[in-house]
């Protein structure tokens, strides 16, 4: 066992081209500077992915990393981070997944799993403590996510934790997702697409060794206090029953609910697809991740053609992107699409965004009946959404083009469709309409994987301090961009803090009990700033013309006013965009093109990025 407290202490590297693997000790310096999880992912990708390497080629790496707090007795310690050079954007890509994978990986004695090369035939990886094996997956190829997980658990044992791709990942759909625990996903940035390109159907992990913590009795005592604190917070009882979808009504009240491909920010049927509808109509079980006292997973059952269908979710993002954005106003319909996308292994965020884009193209005659076999596609029609979803996953007909994502699809479809392709950096925007929320818009513009909300969920700040206000917004976004991803570095979930008002600094209090090292919250945030600058430099390294133009918002937000609802008539003027970016770059210590300055990089110990060395 490692003497590095709080860590498994080892890195497992698997070369799928050669069918070999090796085990390396975890680098202590990396642990100290980058902490774990997202920090390790960013550091390793920067060092190991050759400049300009094809995201779908053997040189790209798929890195999975647990954090120093993952797997420990403290709230919501079940998070694993995954990353690769994104096939969706060409830049830095990462995603996060809950469930039990991080715990299992660390219990097997590893913090990091690096996958490189490309297998000649479909395979899956088994990690059972020290036993590492690459096995034939030809008969699993084509199987859905749920079927794959069921079959592997039957074969290996229920106590194995499985991460699998579905048919969409095999077909290299650019927004494929990894599924685990029958409903947890690493959805964004096409990480599963990289897995599909490596012909790796699944990873199955079991670990029994545990990992050393510096002071087990202090972990037990501090952990107990943390849990008791959460049990005593009002949100523990109020938020948990509805989970993330509980916010649906509020987002509509503030006119920020993406509706019919972001044409408007208010969906008239929102009450029929929100958290209460889920609980009242289709809920089976409150299901959570490892060590979670506030299970946000709403495991549901619906009936489709007389058959029972089970699905975890829909969580808020699916409610927004498949519900409002595709115009589906019944929770059963949203859950149905959710189940189909999960089983096909397709991210419901990008999936919902791409389908909505296609529906708008069809309504405007850019996608023609001749492209759809005469089928009429329209918003709010479940059959249209399901049909498009299946075409995309199979890359059939028009689905082949849509499987590239809205940016590439719009470039090929033409007809002005790029004006309503809602993406940033090539990644489809997730579930908030920010035309009247400058901080949220800036969060999307500067998120380091593209159009994703979770690095800086700043919309509540816009609403709190004034939605027309621009001053102070960049500072708040930066603060959040350090705070929120820090959780992904530590390997814990943000929701106790974000949703239940559990003080985040408490994680610094338990840090020494787990790792034996005392670090202030400010010091940990500094590590997060280091990683934010490093992922920016990953873009600089891999994308030749990278800079300010990559941070611009989708045309729809600056050119077109919101069509209806509480934010009707609002848009994001280009002058506001310029102000936001100027402010943001200045506060970050980046130049006016959005490139980190040498001074900033040196200050953060990122000198190595200046020479382009890994």
């Amino acid at each position, binding site marked *: 066992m490692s003497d590095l407290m709080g860590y498994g202490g080892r890195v497992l590297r698997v070369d799928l081209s050669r069918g070999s693997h090796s085990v390396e000790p975890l680098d202590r310096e990396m642990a100290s500077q980058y902490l774990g999880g997202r920090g390790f992912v960013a550091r390793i990708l920067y060092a190991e992915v050759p400049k300009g390497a094809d995201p779908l080629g053997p040189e790209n790496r798929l890195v999975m990393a647990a954090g120093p707090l993952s*797997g*420990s*007795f403290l709230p919501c310690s079940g998070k694993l981070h995954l990353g690769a050079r994104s096939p969706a954007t060409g830049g830095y890509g990462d995603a996060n997944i809950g469930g*039990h994978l991080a*715990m299992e990986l660390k*219990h097997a004695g590893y913090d990091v799993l690096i996958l490189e090369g490309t297998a000649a035939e479909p395979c899956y990886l088994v990690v059972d*403590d020290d036993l590492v094996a690459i096995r034939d997956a030809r008969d699993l190829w084509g199987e859905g996510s*749920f079927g794959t997980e*069921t079959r592997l658990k039957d074969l290996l044992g*229920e106590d194995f934790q499985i991460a699998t791709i579905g048919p969409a990942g095999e077909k290299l759909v650019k927004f494929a997702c990894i599924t685990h*625990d*029958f*409903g947890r996903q690493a959805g964004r940035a096409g990480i599963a697409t990289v897995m599909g390109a490596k012909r790796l159907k699944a990873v199955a992990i079991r*670990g*029994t*060794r*545990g*990992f050393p*913590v510096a002071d*087990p*009795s202090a*972990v*037990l005592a501090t*952990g*107990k206090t943390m*849990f*008791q604190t959460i*049990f005593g917070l009002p949100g*523990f009882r109020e938020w948990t029953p509805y989970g993330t979808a509980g916010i649906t009504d509020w987002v509509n009240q503030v006119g920020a609910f993406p509706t019919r491909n972001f044409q408007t920010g208010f969906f008239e049927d929102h009450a029929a697809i929100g958290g209460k509808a889920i609980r009242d109509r289709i809920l*089976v*079980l*409150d*299901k*959570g*991740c*490892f*060590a*979670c*006292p*506030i*299970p946000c*997973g709403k*495991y549901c*059952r619906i009936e489709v053609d007389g058959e*029972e269908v*089970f699905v975890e979710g829909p969580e808020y993002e699916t409610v927004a992107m498949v519900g409002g954005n595709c115009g589906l106003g019944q929770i059963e319909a949203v859950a149905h699409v959710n189940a189909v996308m999960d089983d096909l292994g397709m991210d419901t965020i990008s999936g919902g965004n791409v389908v909505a884009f296609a529906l708008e193209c069809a309504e405007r005659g850019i996608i023609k009946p001749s492209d759809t076999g005469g089928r009429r596609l329209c918003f709010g029609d479940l059959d249209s959404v399901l049909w498009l979803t299946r075409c995309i996953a199979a890359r059939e007909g028009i689905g082949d083009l849509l499987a590239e994502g809205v940016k590439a699809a719009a470039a090929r479809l033409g007809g002005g469709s790029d004006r309503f392709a809602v993406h940033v950096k090539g990644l489809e925007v997730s579930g908030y309409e920010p035309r009247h929320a400058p901080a949220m818009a800036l969060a999307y513009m500067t998120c380091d994987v593209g159009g994703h909300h979770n690095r800086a969920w700043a919309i509540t700040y816009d609403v709190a301090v004034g939605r027309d206000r621009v001053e102070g917004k960049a500072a708040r976004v930066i603060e959040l961009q350090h705070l929120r991803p820090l959780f992904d570095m530590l390997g814990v979930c943000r929701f106790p803090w974000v949703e239940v008002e559990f003080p985040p600094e408490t994680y610094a209090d338990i840090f020494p009990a787990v790792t034996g090292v005392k670090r202030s919250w400010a010091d940990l945030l500094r590590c997060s700033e280091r990683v934010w600058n490093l992922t920016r430099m990953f873009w600089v390294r891999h994308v030749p013309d990278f800079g300010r133009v990559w941070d611009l918002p989708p045309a729809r937000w600056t050119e077109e006013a919101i069509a209806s609802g509480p934010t009707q008539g609002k848009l994001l003027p280009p002058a506001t965009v310029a102000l936001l970016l100027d402010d943001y770059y200045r506060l970050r210590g980046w130049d006016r093109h959005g490139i980190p300055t040498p001074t900033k990089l040196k200050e953060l110990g990122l000198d190595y990025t200046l020479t382009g060395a890994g």
Partner: protein
Amino acid sequence: MSRKLTTTAQACSGCRLCQLVCALGHFDENNVKKAALGIRGSFPAPGRYQVRVCVQCGTCAEVCPVEAITRRDGVWVLDRELCTACGACISACPWGVMFTHPGTPQPIKCDACGDCVPYCPREVLRIAEEAEE
């Protein structure tokens, strides 16, 4: 008096906090795999977790050749010093709740300490005490 860990009508969310508390309390290790209770998922259908706990039936004590399992304050407790790790109780347990771990030769048995109970966020666990005839 008899005492045992048992479940309520509440549904388990699969968090495994009970196992963490159990292993930390008994082995001083942050390792759910060393817990004396089990969580098993049935997914995708019907979508629930089964919590496997010791019912304190005492079958294990009956088969133990060295009398390492004895009744103390109404609970069947395994003395890890006396245990020779023969495994007889593991195969005899009708409920499959004598747990094993590759890192410890002796089985792992629930002693109804109840430490896990207050940390189950779903209120699935409770200690039942009954007067005996």
